[in-house]
């Protein structure tokens, strides 16, 4: 019985000690990684290389902030355009035109815009840390962070392209109802 109590106490203590570590939030983990990056960056002896790594690290943050802000601005504009398309659709419907296909396309476009907004917002809060191990591996460490960032940013941008295409599909359906022809774009 005494042994069992000791074991229970030990397990409880172990749980108490490990819980704070397990409860690390994503932001805390990211902050710790940043701190580690700072420490490792300071160990680089080649000042020129150190400056390049530091600059790339800062630019990844800047580019991510600026590009995701632009994407969100474009999504707002795309959504606003869709709103006006809907107004025109309603006006055509009230004059007796069949706008079923347009309304279906509008629903799809709204979903695409919502998905893009979610993806871009998620991208905006992402952080990328250059994993410095040795001075000789700086190139590959920077390349890994840069490649991961480029892949993620392109994926987020692609969702905006998809949303825009979905709105253009609505326009095409509306053009059929009205009997007008749209000019082709680079994304068609």
């Amino acid at each position, binding site marked *: 019985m005494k042994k069992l109590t000791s074991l229970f106490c030990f397990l409880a203590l172990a749980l108490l000690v490990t819980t704070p570590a397990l409860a690390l939030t994503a932001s805390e983990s990211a902050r710790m990684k940043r701190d580690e990056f700072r420490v490792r960056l300071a160990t680089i002896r080649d000042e*020129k*290389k150190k*400056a*390049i*790594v530091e*600059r*790339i690290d800062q*630019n*990844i943050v*800047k*580019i991510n902030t*600026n*590009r995701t802000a*632009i*994407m969100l*601005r*474009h999504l707002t*504009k*795309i959504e606003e*355009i869709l709103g*006006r*398309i809907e*107004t*025109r659709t309603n*006006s055509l419907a009230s004059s007796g035109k069949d706008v079923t296909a347009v309304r279906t396309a509008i629903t799809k476009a709204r979903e695409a815009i919502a998905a893009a907004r979610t993806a871009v917002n998620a991208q905006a809060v992402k952080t990328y840390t250059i994993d410095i191990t040795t001075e000789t591996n*700086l*190139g590959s460490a*920077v*390349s890994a962070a*840069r490649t991961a*960032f*480029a892949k993620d*940013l*392109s994926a987020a*941008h*692609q969702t*905006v*392209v998809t949303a*825009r295409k979905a*709105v*253009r599909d609505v*326009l095409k359906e*509306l*053009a059929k109802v*009205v009997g*007008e022809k*749209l*000019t082709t*774009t*680079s*994304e068609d």
Partner: protein
Amino acid sequence: MKLKTAGLLIASSLLLGACSYLKPAATTTAPQTITPTPAVSVSPTSTNLKDLDTELNATIDDGGAADLKQLQKDAQGL
């Protein structure tokens, strides 16, 4: 004598200042080539199909491809 020393000091300071002013830029450049959204000359409330299409096309951009390319270029010094 003092005047000569002071003159020399001023001249060398000026020379140093000019040198630091003319110093070439750092090897890496800030890749902030953000393409502004093209200005669209249509009514912001128009429901005309062509206007809507023009406004929609104005939201097309490279998605940061130029910035990423610059980032890659900057990393070449490693």
